Protein backbone atom coordinates (compact mmCIF):
# COMPACT_ATOMS: atom_id res chain seq x y z
CA UNK A 1 0.00 0.00 0.00
CA UNK A 2 1.01 3.65 -0.41
CA UNK A 3 2.56 5.15 2.70
CA UNK A 4 -0.19 6.71 4.87
CA UNK A 5 -0.02 10.51 4.90
CA UNK A 6 -1.77 10.99 8.23
CA UNK A 7 -1.46 9.61 11.73
CA UNK A 8 -5.11 8.63 11.64
CA UNK A 9 -4.65 6.60 8.46
CA UNK A 10 -1.42 5.06 9.72
CA UNK A 11 -2.95 4.03 13.05
CA UNK A 12 -5.87 2.38 11.24
CA UNK A 13 -3.56 0.60 8.79
CA UNK A 14 -1.35 -0.65 11.61
CA UNK A 15 -4.34 -2.11 13.45
CA UNK A 16 -5.65 -3.71 10.27
CA UNK A 17 -2.27 -5.30 9.60
CA UNK A 18 -2.01 -3.45 6.28
CA UNK A 19 1.32 -1.92 7.21
CA UNK A 20 3.87 -2.55 9.95
CA UNK A 21 5.54 -0.07 12.19
CA UNK A 22 8.89 -1.22 10.84
CA UNK A 23 7.72 -0.27 7.35
CA UNK A 24 6.49 3.13 8.49
CA UNK A 25 9.69 3.87 10.38
CA UNK A 26 11.89 2.71 7.49
CA UNK A 27 9.90 4.95 5.12
CA UNK A 28 10.45 7.85 7.50
CA UNK A 29 14.18 7.09 7.79
CA UNK A 30 14.47 6.88 4.01
CA UNK A 31 12.67 10.20 3.59
CA UNK A 32 14.94 11.85 6.14
CA UNK A 33 18.05 10.39 4.46
CA UNK A 34 17.00 12.12 1.25
CA UNK A 35 15.38 15.30 2.50
CA UNK A 36 16.68 16.31 5.92
CA UNK A 37 19.80 18.12 4.70
CA UNK A 38 17.83 19.93 2.02
CA UNK A 39 15.26 21.43 4.39
CA UNK A 40 17.16 21.50 7.69
CA UNK A 41 14.59 19.41 9.54
CA UNK A 42 16.58 17.54 12.17
CA UNK A 43 19.22 18.46 14.73
CA UNK A 44 19.56 14.85 15.88
CA UNK A 45 18.10 11.60 14.53
CA UNK A 46 17.36 8.50 16.62
CA UNK A 47 17.58 5.90 13.87
CA UNK A 48 18.67 2.90 15.94
CA UNK A 49 16.26 3.61 18.78
CA UNK A 50 13.39 4.16 16.34
CA UNK A 51 14.06 0.84 14.59
CA UNK A 52 14.08 -0.97 17.92
CA UNK A 53 10.88 0.77 19.01
CA UNK A 54 9.20 -0.15 15.71
CA UNK A 55 10.06 -3.82 16.14
CA UNK A 56 8.65 -3.72 19.67
CA UNK A 57 5.53 -1.94 18.43
CA UNK A 58 4.89 -4.60 15.80
CA UNK A 59 5.21 -7.28 18.46
CA UNK A 60 2.65 -5.51 20.63
CA UNK A 61 0.28 -5.11 17.71
CA UNK A 62 0.66 -8.77 16.82
CA UNK A 63 0.04 -9.89 20.39
CA UNK A 64 -3.56 -8.74 20.35
CA UNK A 65 -3.08 -6.95 23.65
CA UNK A 66 -4.53 -3.43 24.01
CA UNK A 67 -2.20 -0.84 22.50
CA UNK A 68 -1.98 2.95 22.71
CA UNK A 69 -3.52 5.12 19.98
CA UNK A 70 -0.12 6.12 18.57
CA UNK A 71 1.47 2.67 18.63
CA UNK A 72 4.04 2.37 15.87
CA UNK A 73 3.65 5.94 14.55
CA UNK A 74 6.85 7.94 13.76
CA UNK A 75 6.98 11.38 15.40
CA UNK A 76 9.35 14.36 15.61
CA UNK A 77 10.07 16.50 18.67
CA UNK A 78 11.15 20.14 18.59
CA UNK A 79 14.60 20.45 20.15
CA UNK A 80 13.29 22.66 22.90
CA UNK A 81 11.59 19.67 24.54
CA UNK A 82 13.64 17.00 26.28
CA UNK A 83 13.76 13.35 25.26
CA UNK A 84 15.53 10.43 26.89
CA UNK A 85 17.36 9.46 23.69
CA UNK A 86 19.71 12.40 23.50
CA UNK A 87 20.63 15.98 24.40
CA UNK A 88 18.42 19.03 24.00
CA UNK A 89 20.16 22.06 22.52
CA UNK A 90 17.44 24.67 21.91
CA UNK A 91 19.55 25.12 18.75
CA UNK A 92 21.98 27.17 20.79
CA UNK A 93 25.61 26.96 21.82
CA UNK A 94 24.60 28.30 25.22
CA UNK A 95 21.96 25.86 26.43
CA UNK A 96 23.13 23.03 28.71
CA UNK A 97 22.36 19.97 26.55
CA UNK A 98 21.97 17.79 29.64
CA UNK A 99 19.27 20.02 31.14
CA UNK A 100 16.40 17.96 32.63
CA UNK A 101 18.75 15.00 32.99
CA UNK A 102 17.93 13.47 29.62
CA UNK A 103 14.48 12.60 30.89
CA UNK A 104 11.41 12.74 28.71
CA UNK A 105 9.42 15.93 29.09
CA UNK A 106 5.88 15.20 30.28
CA UNK A 107 4.51 15.70 26.76
CA UNK A 108 7.08 13.33 25.25
CA UNK A 109 6.45 10.72 27.95
CA UNK A 110 2.73 10.84 27.15
CA UNK A 111 3.35 10.36 23.42
CA UNK A 112 5.70 7.49 24.16
CA UNK A 113 3.23 5.86 26.56
CA UNK A 114 0.65 6.05 23.77
CA UNK A 115 3.05 4.11 21.54
CA UNK A 116 4.62 6.95 19.54
CA UNK A 117 8.13 6.48 18.15
CA UNK A 118 10.55 9.40 18.41
CA UNK A 119 12.46 9.82 15.15
CA UNK A 120 14.64 12.66 16.43
CA UNK A 121 14.88 16.28 17.50
CA UNK A 122 13.80 18.95 15.09
CA UNK A 123 15.17 22.40 14.34
CA UNK A 124 13.96 25.63 15.93
CA UNK A 125 14.97 29.26 16.14
CA UNK A 126 17.66 29.69 18.81
CA UNK A 127 15.75 29.42 22.11
CA UNK A 128 12.59 29.68 19.96
CA UNK A 129 13.17 33.38 19.42
CA UNK A 130 16.44 34.15 17.67
CA UNK A 131 18.64 33.04 14.86
CA UNK A 132 22.04 31.39 14.86
CA UNK A 133 24.85 33.41 13.32
CA UNK A 134 26.07 32.46 9.87
CA UNK A 135 28.84 29.92 10.26
CA UNK A 136 27.19 28.30 13.28
CA UNK A 137 27.01 24.47 13.35
CA UNK A 138 23.23 24.44 12.91
CA UNK A 139 21.34 23.65 9.69
CA UNK A 140 19.98 26.23 7.29
CA UNK A 141 16.17 26.12 7.50
CA UNK A 142 14.34 25.94 4.19
CA UNK A 143 10.71 25.81 3.11
CA UNK A 144 9.55 22.55 1.47
CA UNK A 145 7.50 24.51 -1.07
CA UNK A 146 10.36 26.80 -2.11
CA UNK A 147 13.87 26.44 -0.74
CA UNK A 148 14.45 30.15 -1.23
CA UNK A 149 11.93 30.83 1.53
CA UNK A 150 11.84 30.26 5.28
CA UNK A 151 9.73 27.38 6.67
CA UNK A 152 8.45 29.61 9.46
CA UNK A 153 9.37 29.43 13.08
CA UNK A 154 10.14 28.65 15.58
CA UNK A 155 8.91 25.04 15.24
CA UNK A 156 10.56 24.95 11.83
CA UNK A 157 11.80 21.37 11.71
CA UNK A 158 8.54 19.85 12.90
CA UNK A 159 6.81 21.84 10.15
CA UNK A 160 9.14 20.81 7.34
CA UNK A 161 9.36 17.23 8.64
CA UNK A 162 5.60 16.66 8.55
CA UNK A 163 5.24 18.43 5.20
CA UNK A 164 7.90 16.21 3.61
CA UNK A 165 6.98 12.86 5.18
CA UNK A 166 10.01 12.54 7.44
CA UNK A 167 7.53 11.72 10.23
CA UNK A 168 3.75 11.82 10.45
CA UNK A 169 3.33 14.31 13.29
CA UNK A 170 5.31 16.04 15.98
CA UNK A 171 5.55 18.51 18.79
CA UNK A 172 5.99 22.23 18.46
CA UNK A 173 5.86 25.08 20.93
CA UNK A 174 4.07 28.39 20.56
CA UNK A 175 4.76 31.67 22.38
CA UNK A 176 4.06 34.17 19.60
CA UNK A 177 2.92 31.93 16.74
CA UNK A 178 5.63 29.28 16.64
CA UNK A 179 3.31 26.33 15.94
CA UNK A 180 0.85 28.15 13.69
CA UNK A 181 3.33 30.10 11.55
CA UNK A 182 5.38 27.09 10.37
CA UNK A 183 2.16 25.11 10.00
CA UNK A 184 0.83 27.82 7.67
CA UNK A 185 4.07 28.25 5.75
CA UNK A 186 4.67 24.51 5.33
CA UNK A 187 1.08 23.68 4.36
CA UNK A 188 0.22 21.53 7.38
CA UNK A 189 -2.03 21.73 10.45
CA UNK A 190 -0.92 22.92 13.88
CA UNK A 191 -2.78 23.29 17.16
CA UNK A 192 -1.85 25.70 19.92
CA UNK A 193 -3.91 24.34 22.84
CA UNK A 194 -5.31 26.55 25.59
CA UNK A 195 -2.61 27.86 27.94
CA UNK A 196 -2.26 25.23 30.69
CA UNK A 197 -3.91 22.43 28.69
CA UNK A 198 -0.64 20.56 28.00
CA UNK A 199 2.06 20.53 30.71
CA UNK A 200 5.19 22.34 29.55
CA UNK A 201 7.63 20.92 32.09
CA UNK A 202 10.71 19.63 30.30
CA UNK A 203 10.44 22.38 27.70
CA UNK A 204 13.09 25.10 27.67
CA UNK A 205 11.16 28.27 28.58
CA UNK A 206 10.81 31.27 26.33
CA UNK A 207 8.08 33.12 28.23
CA UNK A 208 6.61 31.30 31.21
CA UNK A 209 3.15 32.85 31.01
CA UNK A 210 2.64 32.22 27.31
CA UNK A 211 4.56 29.07 26.30
CA UNK A 212 2.45 26.20 25.01
CA UNK A 213 3.28 22.76 23.63
CA UNK A 214 1.05 21.43 20.88
CA UNK A 215 0.76 18.97 18.02
CA UNK A 216 1.66 19.56 14.37
CA UNK A 217 0.42 17.11 11.75
CA UNK A 218 -1.26 16.98 8.37
CA UNK A 219 -4.82 17.09 9.62
CA UNK A 220 -7.04 18.40 12.36
CA UNK A 221 -8.07 14.79 13.03
CA UNK A 222 -4.40 13.96 13.70
CA UNK A 223 -4.09 16.93 16.04
CA UNK A 224 -7.23 15.75 17.86
CA UNK A 225 -5.72 12.31 18.32
CA UNK A 226 -2.43 13.71 19.63
CA UNK A 227 -4.17 16.18 21.93
CA UNK A 228 -6.19 13.35 23.46
CA UNK A 229 -2.85 11.92 24.56
CA UNK A 230 -1.11 15.20 25.49
CA UNK A 231 -3.87 16.98 27.46
CA UNK A 232 -4.22 17.01 31.23
CA UNK A 233 -2.56 18.66 34.19
CA UNK A 234 0.67 17.49 35.77
CA UNK A 235 2.05 18.55 39.15
CA UNK A 236 5.44 19.29 37.58
CA UNK A 237 3.96 22.31 35.79
CA UNK A 238 2.26 24.77 38.14
CA UNK A 239 0.54 26.50 35.24
CA UNK A 240 -1.11 23.35 33.92
CA UNK A 241 -4.83 23.37 34.60
CA UNK A 242 -7.12 20.62 35.92
CA UNK A 243 -9.91 20.91 33.38
CA UNK A 244 -11.79 17.90 31.99
CA UNK A 245 -10.08 16.36 28.97
CA UNK A 246 -12.57 15.78 26.17
CA UNK A 247 -12.69 12.93 23.68
CA UNK A 248 -11.37 15.10 20.88
CA UNK A 249 -11.57 12.58 18.01
CA UNK A 250 -15.21 11.90 18.94
CA UNK A 251 -16.01 15.60 18.52
CA UNK A 252 -15.18 15.48 14.81
CA UNK A 253 -18.62 15.18 13.28
CA UNK A 254 -17.92 16.86 9.96
CA UNK A 255 -20.95 19.08 10.58
CA UNK A 256 -20.86 22.67 11.81
CA UNK A 257 -24.61 23.14 12.16
CA UNK A 258 -25.36 25.25 15.22
CA UNK A 259 -21.93 26.90 15.33
CA UNK A 260 -21.63 30.66 14.87
CA UNK A 261 -18.28 31.69 13.42
CA UNK A 262 -16.92 35.24 13.51
CA UNK A 263 -14.60 36.23 10.67
CA UNK A 264 -11.98 38.95 11.06
CA UNK A 265 -10.31 39.39 7.69
CA UNK A 266 -7.69 41.69 9.24
CA UNK A 267 -8.58 44.48 6.83
CA UNK A 268 -8.67 46.89 9.79
CA UNK A 269 -4.99 46.16 10.40
CA UNK A 270 -3.44 46.27 6.93
CA UNK A 271 0.26 45.51 6.65
CA UNK A 272 2.91 46.51 4.19
CA UNK A 273 3.66 42.91 3.22
CA UNK A 274 0.06 41.67 2.81
CA UNK A 275 -0.28 39.30 -0.14
CA UNK A 276 -3.14 40.31 -2.46
CA UNK A 277 -4.23 36.68 -2.82
CA UNK A 278 -5.17 36.33 0.85
CA UNK A 279 -8.62 38.01 0.87
CA UNK A 280 -9.87 35.82 -1.97
CA UNK A 281 -8.44 32.64 -0.47
CA UNK A 282 -9.98 33.54 2.90
CA UNK A 283 -13.38 34.22 1.32
CA UNK A 284 -13.41 30.80 -0.33
CA UNK A 285 -12.38 29.16 2.97
CA UNK A 286 -15.18 30.91 4.82
CA UNK A 287 -17.69 29.66 2.25
CA UNK A 288 -16.49 26.11 2.96
CA UNK A 289 -17.25 26.64 6.65
CA UNK A 290 -20.66 28.02 5.75
CA UNK A 291 -21.34 25.04 3.50
CA UNK A 292 -20.51 22.77 6.44
CA UNK A 293 -23.42 24.31 8.33
CA UNK A 294 -21.89 27.21 10.23
CA UNK A 295 -23.49 30.60 10.55
CA UNK A 296 -20.89 33.21 9.59
CA UNK A 297 -20.72 36.81 10.80
CA UNK A 298 -18.10 39.55 10.53
CA UNK A 299 -16.25 40.54 13.73
CA UNK A 300 -13.28 42.69 14.77
CA UNK A 301 -10.81 41.41 17.34
CA UNK A 302 -10.74 43.90 20.23
CA UNK A 303 -7.55 45.65 21.41
CA UNK A 304 -5.58 44.28 18.47
CA UNK A 305 -2.49 46.50 18.76
CA UNK A 306 -2.52 46.44 22.55
CA UNK A 307 -2.61 42.66 22.89
CA UNK A 308 0.05 42.13 20.26
CA UNK A 309 2.24 44.51 22.22
CA UNK A 310 1.43 42.68 25.45
CA UNK A 311 2.53 39.46 23.77
CA UNK A 312 5.83 40.90 22.57
CA UNK A 313 6.65 42.80 25.73
CA UNK A 314 5.80 39.91 28.04
CA UNK A 315 7.79 37.53 25.88
CA UNK A 316 10.92 39.69 25.91
CA UNK A 317 10.76 40.57 29.61
CA UNK A 318 10.23 36.97 30.69
CA UNK A 319 12.92 35.78 28.26
CA UNK A 320 15.38 38.39 29.54
CA UNK A 321 14.75 37.14 33.07
CA UNK A 322 15.35 33.52 32.10
CA UNK A 323 18.53 34.32 30.18
CA UNK A 324 20.07 36.88 32.54
CA UNK A 325 22.60 34.51 34.19
CA UNK A 326 23.80 33.12 30.85
CA UNK A 327 23.82 36.60 29.30
CA UNK A 328 26.34 37.71 31.91
CA UNK A 329 28.62 34.73 31.35
CA UNK A 330 28.09 33.76 27.70
CA UNK A 331 26.81 36.82 25.82
CA UNK A 332 28.99 36.25 22.77
CA UNK A 333 27.91 32.61 22.40
CA UNK A 334 24.32 33.61 21.67
CA UNK A 335 23.43 34.44 18.08
CA UNK A 336 23.66 38.17 17.50
CA UNK A 337 19.98 38.41 16.63
CA UNK A 338 18.96 36.25 19.57
CA UNK A 339 20.75 38.31 22.19
CA UNK A 340 19.63 41.63 20.75
CA UNK A 341 15.97 40.56 20.77
CA UNK A 342 16.06 39.16 24.28
CA UNK A 343 18.01 42.16 25.58
CA UNK A 344 15.21 44.41 24.35
CA UNK A 345 13.28 43.09 27.35
CA UNK A 346 15.42 45.53 29.34
CA UNK A 347 13.54 48.44 27.74
CA UNK A 348 10.53 47.80 29.97
CA UNK A 349 10.23 48.52 33.69
CA UNK A 350 8.62 46.28 36.28
CA UNK A 351 5.74 48.76 36.34
CA UNK A 352 5.32 48.41 32.58
CA UNK A 353 5.28 44.64 32.90
CA UNK A 354 2.51 44.65 35.49
CA UNK A 355 0.54 47.14 33.43
CA UNK A 356 0.86 44.80 30.47
CA UNK A 357 -0.63 42.02 32.58
CA UNK A 358 -3.53 44.30 33.56
CA UNK A 359 -4.20 45.03 29.89
CA UNK A 360 -3.96 41.33 29.29
CA UNK A 361 -6.77 40.79 31.82
CA UNK A 362 -8.89 43.42 30.06
CA UNK A 363 -8.16 41.78 26.73
CA UNK A 364 -9.13 38.34 28.01
CA UNK A 365 -12.44 39.78 29.22
CA UNK A 366 -13.12 41.58 25.92
CA UNK A 367 -12.34 38.41 23.97
CA UNK A 368 -14.63 36.42 26.28
CA UNK A 369 -17.39 38.95 25.50
CA UNK A 370 -16.76 38.33 21.81
CA UNK A 371 -17.03 34.59 22.39
CA UNK A 372 -20.41 35.15 24.03
CA UNK A 373 -21.56 36.25 20.56
CA UNK A 374 -19.78 33.61 18.47
CA UNK A 375 -18.46 30.09 19.06
CA UNK A 376 -15.29 30.46 16.99
CA UNK A 377 -13.27 33.24 15.39
CA UNK A 378 -11.35 32.76 12.16
CA UNK A 379 -8.62 34.93 10.65
CA UNK A 380 -5.71 34.33 8.31
CA UNK A 381 -2.74 32.92 10.27
CA UNK A 382 -0.39 35.17 8.29
CA UNK A 383 -1.54 37.55 5.56
CA UNK A 384 1.33 36.53 3.28
CA UNK A 385 3.27 33.43 2.30
CA UNK A 386 6.62 32.46 3.78
CA UNK A 387 9.21 35.25 3.52
CA UNK A 388 12.34 34.94 1.41
CA UNK A 389 15.27 33.73 3.49
CA UNK A 390 16.99 37.09 3.32
CA UNK A 391 14.17 38.67 5.33
CA UNK A 392 14.95 36.62 8.41
CA UNK A 393 18.50 37.91 8.62
CA UNK A 394 19.79 40.54 11.00
CA UNK A 395 20.22 43.10 8.25
CA UNK A 396 16.56 42.92 7.16
CA UNK A 397 14.93 42.76 10.55
CA UNK A 398 12.08 45.16 9.87
CA UNK A 399 10.62 43.46 6.82
CA UNK A 400 7.48 41.40 6.78
CA UNK A 401 6.59 41.03 10.42
CA UNK A 402 3.33 42.91 10.31
CA UNK A 403 1.72 40.13 8.31
CA UNK A 404 1.90 37.66 11.24
CA UNK A 405 -1.51 37.46 12.95
CA UNK A 406 -0.70 34.94 15.64
CA UNK A 407 0.69 36.52 18.83
CA UNK A 408 -2.59 38.14 19.87
CA UNK A 409 -3.88 34.73 20.98
CA UNK A 410 -0.80 34.02 23.08
CA UNK A 411 -1.71 37.01 25.20
CA UNK A 412 -5.30 35.84 25.70
CA UNK A 413 -4.66 32.11 26.22
CA UNK A 414 -7.32 30.75 23.81
CA UNK A 415 -6.80 27.57 21.77
CA UNK A 416 -6.08 28.17 18.07
CA UNK A 417 -5.74 25.78 15.14
CA UNK A 418 -4.07 26.67 11.85
CA UNK A 419 -5.19 24.69 8.80
CA UNK A 420 -3.97 25.06 5.20
CA UNK A 421 -6.46 27.11 3.14
CA UNK A 422 -4.77 27.58 -0.23
CA UNK A 423 -1.76 29.17 -1.89
CA UNK A 424 -0.38 32.51 -2.94
CA UNK A 425 -0.01 33.14 -6.65
CA UNK A 426 3.64 32.25 -6.13
CA UNK A 427 2.74 28.78 -4.87
CA UNK A 428 3.38 29.30 -1.14
CA UNK A 429 0.87 27.83 1.36
CA UNK A 430 -1.51 30.00 3.39
CA UNK A 431 -3.10 29.17 6.74
CA UNK A 432 -6.51 29.76 8.31
CA UNK A 433 -6.58 30.31 12.07
CA UNK A 434 -9.56 28.96 14.02
CA UNK A 435 -9.75 30.23 17.61
CA UNK A 436 -12.10 29.03 20.31
CA UNK A 437 -13.05 29.55 23.94
CA UNK A 438 -10.50 28.47 26.57
CA UNK A 439 -10.46 24.68 27.02
CA UNK A 440 -12.87 24.17 24.12
CA UNK A 441 -10.35 22.64 21.74
CA UNK A 442 -13.03 20.21 20.58
CA UNK A 443 -14.94 23.01 18.83
CA UNK A 444 -11.78 24.31 17.15
CA UNK A 445 -10.81 20.83 15.99
CA UNK A 446 -14.36 20.08 14.83
CA UNK A 447 -14.30 23.14 12.57
CA UNK A 448 -10.83 22.32 11.24
CA UNK A 449 -11.84 18.75 10.51
CA UNK A 450 -15.09 19.78 8.83
CA UNK A 451 -13.07 22.16 6.64
CA UNK A 452 -10.61 19.41 5.74
CA UNK A 453 -13.38 16.93 4.87
CA UNK A 454 -14.34 19.40 2.14
CA UNK A 455 -10.87 20.47 0.97
CA UNK A 456 -7.55 18.76 0.27
CA UNK A 457 -5.06 21.56 0.93
CA UNK A 458 -3.69 19.65 3.93
CA UNK A 459 -2.91 16.58 1.83
CA UNK A 460 -0.92 18.39 -0.88
CA UNK A 461 2.72 17.31 -1.15
CA UNK A 462 5.39 19.85 -2.16
CA UNK A 463 6.71 19.26 -5.66
CA UNK A 464 10.24 19.44 -4.29
CA UNK A 465 9.54 16.23 -2.36
CA UNK A 466 8.19 14.48 -5.44
CA UNK A 467 11.26 15.58 -7.39
CA UNK A 468 13.59 14.31 -4.68
CA UNK A 469 11.76 10.98 -4.58
CA UNK A 470 12.02 10.61 -8.33
CA UNK A 471 15.76 11.40 -8.33
Amino acid at each position, binding site marked *: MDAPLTVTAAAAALRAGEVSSVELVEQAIDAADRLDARFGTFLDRYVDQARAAATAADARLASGDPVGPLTGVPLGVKDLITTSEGPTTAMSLVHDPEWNGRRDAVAVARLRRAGGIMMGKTTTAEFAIGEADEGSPFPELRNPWDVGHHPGGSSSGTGSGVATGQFLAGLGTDTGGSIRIPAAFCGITGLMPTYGRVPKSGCVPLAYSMDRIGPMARSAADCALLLSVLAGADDSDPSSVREPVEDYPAALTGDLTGLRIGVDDMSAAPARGDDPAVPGVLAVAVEVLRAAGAEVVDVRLPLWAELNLVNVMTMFVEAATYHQPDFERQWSRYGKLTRSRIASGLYYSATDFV*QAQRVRRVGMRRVAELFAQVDLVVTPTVTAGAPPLVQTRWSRLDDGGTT*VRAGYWNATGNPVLSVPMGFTDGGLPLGLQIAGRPFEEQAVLRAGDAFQRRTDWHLRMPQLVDAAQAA
Partner: protein
Amino acid sequence: MTQMYATAAVALAAELAADLPAEPGPDPETAVRALLAMAHLTPAEDEIAGLVAGFRAARAAVRLLYAVPEARYDEPAVLFSARA
Protein backbone atom coordinates in the same frame (compact mmCIF):
# COMPACT_ATOMS: atom_id res chain seq x y z
CA MET B 1 9.88 35.07 12.49
CA THR B 2 9.13 36.14 16.02
CA GLN B 3 11.66 38.94 15.81
CA MET B 4 10.08 40.40 12.67
CA TYR B 5 6.62 40.22 14.19
CA ALA B 6 7.87 41.81 17.40
CA THR B 7 9.41 44.77 15.65
CA ALA B 8 6.18 45.31 13.73
CA ALA B 9 3.98 45.00 16.83
CA VAL B 10 6.04 47.60 18.69
CA ALA B 11 6.03 49.92 15.70
CA LEU B 12 2.23 49.69 15.35
CA ALA B 13 1.69 50.40 19.05
CA ALA B 14 4.11 53.32 18.94
CA GLU B 15 2.28 54.75 15.95
CA LEU B 16 -1.07 54.51 17.73
CA ALA B 17 0.41 56.06 20.87
CA ALA B 18 1.88 58.99 18.99
CA ASP B 19 -1.05 61.28 19.78
CA LEU B 20 -1.11 60.51 23.47
CA PRO B 21 0.19 63.19 25.80
CA ALA B 22 3.66 62.42 27.11
CA GLU B 23 6.65 64.03 28.77
CA PRO B 24 9.89 63.85 26.78
CA GLY B 25 11.57 60.55 27.53
CA PRO B 26 15.17 60.03 28.57
CA ASP B 27 18.01 60.24 26.10
CA PRO B 28 17.96 56.76 24.47
CA GLU B 29 21.70 56.25 24.50
CA THR B 30 22.03 57.24 28.14
CA ALA B 31 19.09 55.06 29.11
CA VAL B 32 20.21 51.98 27.18
CA ARG B 33 23.75 52.18 28.55
CA ALA B 34 22.34 52.47 32.07
CA LEU B 35 19.98 49.51 31.57
CA LEU B 36 22.82 47.37 30.21
CA ALA B 37 25.03 48.34 33.14
CA MET B 38 22.27 47.40 35.59
CA ALA B 39 22.07 44.00 33.89
CA HIS B 40 25.88 43.63 33.96
CA LEU B 41 26.02 43.37 30.18
CA THR B 42 28.73 44.82 27.97
CA PRO B 43 27.77 44.33 24.30
CA ALA B 44 29.89 45.61 21.43
CA GLU B 45 29.29 49.19 20.34
CA ASP B 46 27.37 48.20 17.19
CA GLU B 47 24.99 46.12 19.28
CA ILE B 48 24.50 48.97 21.72
CA ALA B 49 23.70 51.19 18.75
CA GLY B 50 21.07 48.66 17.64
CA LEU B 51 19.47 48.63 21.07
CA VAL B 52 19.54 52.43 21.21
CA ALA B 53 17.80 52.56 17.84
CA GLY B 54 14.92 50.43 19.14
CA PHE B 55 14.53 52.15 22.49
CA ARG B 56 12.45 55.17 21.52
CA ALA B 57 9.77 53.11 19.71
CA ALA B 58 9.55 50.65 22.59
CA ARG B 59 9.04 53.40 25.15
CA ALA B 60 6.49 55.13 22.94
CA ALA B 61 4.60 51.87 22.48
CA VAL B 62 4.32 51.31 26.23
CA ARG B 63 2.21 54.45 26.57
CA LEU B 64 -0.56 52.67 24.67
CA LEU B 65 -0.90 50.21 27.54
CA TYR B 66 -1.45 52.99 30.09
CA ALA B 67 -4.16 54.43 27.85
CA VAL B 68 -6.52 51.44 28.20
CA PRO B 69 -9.18 52.87 30.53
CA GLU B 70 -10.55 49.53 31.76
CA ALA B 71 -7.12 48.52 33.01
CA ARG B 72 -7.07 51.34 35.58
CA TYR B 73 -8.59 49.26 38.38
CA ASP B 74 -8.06 45.76 37.01
CA GLU B 75 -5.86 43.05 38.52
CA PRO B 76 -2.91 41.81 36.49
CA ALA B 77 -3.10 38.37 34.88
CA VAL B 78 -0.15 36.96 36.79
CA LEU B 79 0.17 33.40 38.01
CA PHE B 80 0.16 32.86 41.74
CA SER B 81 -1.13 30.10 43.96
CA ALA B 82 -0.65 29.65 47.68
CA ARG B 83 -0.13 25.96 47.01
CA ALA B 84 3.48 25.43 45.93
